[in-house]
């Protein structure tokens, strides 16, 4: 074989239709066997949608090779099929003048190559996270995307006629530093998307984030993190923290023990003109501390108060736009191929093998 001919032979091989059939058949057979393993081994395969494929392969996929080898091999076959399809498409482009009538078919091929490339990109460079809790007014940083954050401006559960929650309405803002990138009402099937980032409304819950009190002479008030009360002597009480379940350690330090209101406590700061601020814990189950009665604040704890928290899914797939382009190419290709099918049928076209 001459040195000039081997690249040619390799190219012909990569463009070969028979190779495509062999690869597609092998991948199908392998996949049929492998797919049956998925429902019976949830410990291995159950978490596959929770992370990009690349990360899954690097963790579960390589830890359980006995169960996952077919995925590695199948992936390699599909990758080779992708290269095969790309070569086939390039070969068509090079002969476009004679073969433009096959535009529909080759748009399908281009679509497949784009989709495969996009999936590979997303699998290697994307991330997924479920169960991100965010309360109204809160701004949280997006892990894996330094500098970017999400703010929940408003939240409202949507109930059906029998009072069961069926959807939720999140007013979300995506920020980079201080500047607003996107604002969107996020509901079921309506995510916030921005350059491969997708923020979805997954569920909601409620958090005990404060307490309702009777205040002698002033009626009912809710105190939560950030609440302020003016004192009769010109000073001010600010709530610095609310813990539904506060635990005082041996060294006097107070730590959070959980989210249910078992032993609620408020960290209060009293400021008076001309005096240094003083912070102290008020355990609501105990008697009203002296430093509060001294300030003439007669608080009577009544009930925990709850605020809704939205539970979001935050995923990033840098290949999403490319995948969409692939889907568009494939859709256009299918429509064109169907239109030209009847025409070609009449002429009895067959590609040369």
């Amino acid at each position, binding site marked *: 074989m001459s040195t000039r001919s081997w690249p040619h032979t390799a190219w012909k091989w990569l463009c070969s239709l028979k190779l495509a059939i062999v690869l597609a*058949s092998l991948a199908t057979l392998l996949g049929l066997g492998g797919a049956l393993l998925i429902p019976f081994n949830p410990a291995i395969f159950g978490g596959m949608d929770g992370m990009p494929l690349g990360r899954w392969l690097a963790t579960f996929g390589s830890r359980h090779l006995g169960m996952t080898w077919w995925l590695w091999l199948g992936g390699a076959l599909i990758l080779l099929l992708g290269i095969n399809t790309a070569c086939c498409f390039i070969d068509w482009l090079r002969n476009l003048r004679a073969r433009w009538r096959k535009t529909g078919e080759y748009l399908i091929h281009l679509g497949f190559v784009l989709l495969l490339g996009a999936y590979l990109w997303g699998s290697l460079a994307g991330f997924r996270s479920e169960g991100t809790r965010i309360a109204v007014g809160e701004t949280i940083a997006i892990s894996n995307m330094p500098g970017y954050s999400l703010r929940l401006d408003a939240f409202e559960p949507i109930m059906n006629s029998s009072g069961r929650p069926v959807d939720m309405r999140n007013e979300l803002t995506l920020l980079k530093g201080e500047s607003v990138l996107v604002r969107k009402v996020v509901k079921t099937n309506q995510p916030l998307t921005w350059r491969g980032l997708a923020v979805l409304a997954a569920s909601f819950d409620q958090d005990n984030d404060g307490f309702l009190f009777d205040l002698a002479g002033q009626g009912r008030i809710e105190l939560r993190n950030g609440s302020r009360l003016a004192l009769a002597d010109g000073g001010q009480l600010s709530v610095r923290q609310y813990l539904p379940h506060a635990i005082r350690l041996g060294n006097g330090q107070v730590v959070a023990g959980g989210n249910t209101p078992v032993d609620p406590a408020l960290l209060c700061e009293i400021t008076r003109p001309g005096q240094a601020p003083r912070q102290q814990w008020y355990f609501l189950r105990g008697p009203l501390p002296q430093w509060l009665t001294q300030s003439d604040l007669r608080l009577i704890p009544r009930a925990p108060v709850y605020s809704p928290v939205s539970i979001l899914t935050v*995923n990033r797939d840098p290949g999403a736009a490319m995948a969409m382009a692939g889907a568009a190419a494939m859709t256009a290709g299918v429509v064109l191929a169907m239109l030209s099918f009847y025409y070609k049928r009449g002429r009895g076209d067959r590609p040369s093998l």
Partner: protein
Amino acid sequence: MTEIAALLLKSAFACYLLSANLYLLHVAVRRPVLWRSAFGLVLTGFALHSACLGLRWYLAGYLPVTNLFSTLFFFSWALAATYLYFELRYRIHASGLFIMLLNLLLLGTALTRDTALRPLIPALDTPLFTLHIVFSFLGYAFFAMAFSIGVLYLVQKRLASRLLPELALLRQLNEESVFLGFCFFTLCMIFGSIWAYVAWGYYFSWNIKGLMSFLVWLFYGGMCHAKFVRRWQGTGYALLSIAGFAIVLFTYLGIGLLMSSNHPLD
């Protein structure tokens, strides 16, 4: 209104049933009047079936394909549409009988089921869902047609009967069914993936139904090429069509009925 829908459904079933019998009779006694009447009945049945579908769509406010009854009902409608397509284009008469029998089987099973229309949950309240379902059943219907033509091809190859269409026509019908089925199924996968992306934040889910659907797509994609290879033409293609339909049945029924997945059937 729901009584009218039920009446339409039963009348459609009766038309299809009568038509299938006439087609069978036509195989034995070749009389044009038989297939003409049979064809007229399929057309009437299909019109009633479509009216019933349209009425249920109107009553529900969405294309009702969310439970076992409505998927059986819709699949049978897609099968009837596929049959009509081939009958109008190629006058296949009794050669499409398998499809009509499958249609009767599905519709007959559907008749005994709960037909109630329930409010749509927000997750399914998107045109992507409707497109995904419509194209999936159109795809499945053409794959079923490819299967039945494949079986006929093998039978005809053995019997060389004058009652059945010629091998060349059967081969052409088989290839056409696979190609059209593949096209519809591709659209089904595309709309399903976009829907998955807006609903879950990723466009391919690694569960048995998702993977099997991809394999069905890959298999029929491969078949779209196999017809260009001489060795796979004719008999090979018929065998592949039969094997492909087995995978389709497993993907639609096997997983839906036997295993839990994110595509429950009921």
